[in-house]
């Protein structure tokens, strides 16, 4: 169980390994071509060219124009920036924002800040038992003072793909800005900002085999923004700070590869995913699949295993070399389990027993078979230790 055990990494929704091709293009930008892109001498111009080349790669991946891409320090910053700035620039029009109850905390906590400190009114739309937002609910929620709709493209916990295209159409017809947190979607499903009628889109490199700590915000031409970070004239004066050169280069390469490989990726991961889901449901009693099955990220498996607690489950798997994650309260240090699992209607006690296995390009058929081999025993073991039983627990 110790030193040389094989690691089966199934936590790709948390973060991914930087791919070799990506690291290779990044390396020269640390110690050789290390210029500040704002410097006008040759060393600086080299760096500037690299940043602009990456901007083109990101734009191409999203069907956007290069000047609509702004580099940030990751998905959280992009979300914060989009929501705070869009809201601030439209304060005179109104102070109402529509979002969903299953957004990432980067969206939810920003909305809560605006609610608490800045007098905004936030509508948190409910979702159905699969985690889907109903576009009609979005439409109904739009009021005269609505300045922004923010609905994620794909949920990070249960993998549900939201009806972004429909919501985009509704937002456009109503003349309301539309932001989507596409941190889990980019590199996993096709994204075209124009087809989707998206005005603002957040992405983060480390979710598709780029480096951590770098992301981007797509800002449709014409959308007025303020800075979240003030200072130098970088990023067309809208996001200050010396550019994260090597990481930006890595982001460009990573998104280029991810989009190129998307068809292959989708087929491979969907197959592994469904094998894993079906295997778990077949082998283990009292397990439910969380998230919509039809509208689902290719790599996402999320199940609730009754009578046992998620952290214990994932730590047992960890001891066997299988790395997953859980919506259990105990993994977050709070007492409540994941807000997403509660929002799809799971009782607390079931939500606590959830397990997410998020597949990535590194996973194989053998990995899936291994998990299907060990998981039932782990569950049996933990259930034997559990004071809960079928009738007792779910009163």
């Amino acid at each position: 169980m110790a030193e040389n055990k094989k690691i089966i990494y199934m936590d790709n929704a948390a973060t991914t390994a930087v791919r070799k091709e990506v690291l290779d293009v990044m390396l020269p930008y640390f110690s050789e071509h290390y210029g500040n892109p704002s410097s006008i001498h040759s060393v600086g111009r080299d760096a500037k060219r690299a940043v602009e080349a990456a901007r083109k790669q990101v734009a191409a991946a999203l069907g956007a124009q290069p000047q609509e891409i702004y580099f940030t320090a990751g998905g959280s910053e992009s979300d914060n920036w989009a929501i705070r700035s869009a809201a601030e620039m439209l304060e005179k029009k109104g102070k109402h924002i529509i979002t969903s109850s299953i957004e990432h905390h980067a969206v939810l906590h920003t909305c809560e800040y605006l609610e608490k400190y800045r007098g905004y009114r936030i509508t948190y739309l409910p979702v159905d038992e699969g985690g889907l937002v109903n576009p009609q609910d979005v439409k109904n929620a739009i009021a005269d003072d609505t300045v922004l709709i923010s609905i994620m493209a794909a949920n990070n916990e249960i993998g549900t793909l939201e009806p972004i295209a429909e919501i985009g159409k509704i937002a456009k017809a109503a003349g309301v800005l539309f932001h989507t947190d596409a941190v889990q979607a980019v590199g996993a499903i096709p994204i075209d900002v124009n087809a989707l009628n998206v005005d603002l889109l957040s992405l983060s490199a480390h979710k598709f085999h780029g480096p951590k700590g770098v992301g981007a915000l797509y800002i449709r031409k014409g959308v007025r923004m303020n800075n979240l970070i003030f200072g130098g004239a970088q990023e067309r004066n809208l996001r200050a700070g010396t550019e994260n050169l090597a990481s930006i280069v890595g982001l460009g390469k990573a998104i280029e590869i991810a989009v190129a490989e998307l068809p292959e990726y989708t087929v491979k991961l969907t197959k592994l995913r469904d094998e894993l889901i079906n295997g778990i449901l077949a082998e283990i009693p009292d397990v439910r699949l969380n998230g919509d099955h039809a509208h689902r990220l290719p790599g996402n498996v999320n199940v609730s295993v009754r009578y046992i607690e998620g952290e214990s489950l994932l730590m047992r798997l960890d001891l066997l070399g299988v790395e997953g994650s859980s919506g259990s309260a105990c993994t977050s240090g709070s007492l409540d389990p994941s807000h997403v699992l509660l929002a799809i209607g799971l009782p607390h006690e079931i939500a606590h027993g959830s397990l997410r296995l998020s597949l990535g390009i590194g996973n194989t058929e053998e990995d899936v078979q291994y998990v299907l081999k060990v998981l039932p025993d782990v569950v049996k073991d933990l259930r034997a230790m559990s004071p809960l039983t079928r009738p007792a627990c779910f009163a």
Partner: protein
Amino acid sequence: MYSEKVMDHFEHPRNVGEIADASGTGTVGNARCGDIMKMDIKVENNIITDVKFKTFGCCAAVATSSMATEMVKGKSVEEALQLTNKAVAEALDGLPAVKIHCSLLAEEAIHAALEDYHKKHPQGE
């Protein structure tokens, strides 16, 4: 984040199970909060001769349950009542700050089991 002792007790929990003719049983916590601990004790001549637990909870909950059972086994009822969550956590070489609340359950479960024992055996046997 967890000490080796915690992981050892998590991986190999001691005294898991139930006692058919328990002298006392305590169940604390609730599934809503993600932690339930049930403890059975067997008391003979005022000495805890056997103890078993079942726990629904995180690593820390499992490990503190396991450690607590080891710590009270062979003790007198009075000694067992002295057991604090702090002592359990220390015996495990510490717990992460966010997990301290789990160690409370172990203390509570033992107290609840002893209380149940006292209720059932008002005269001490």
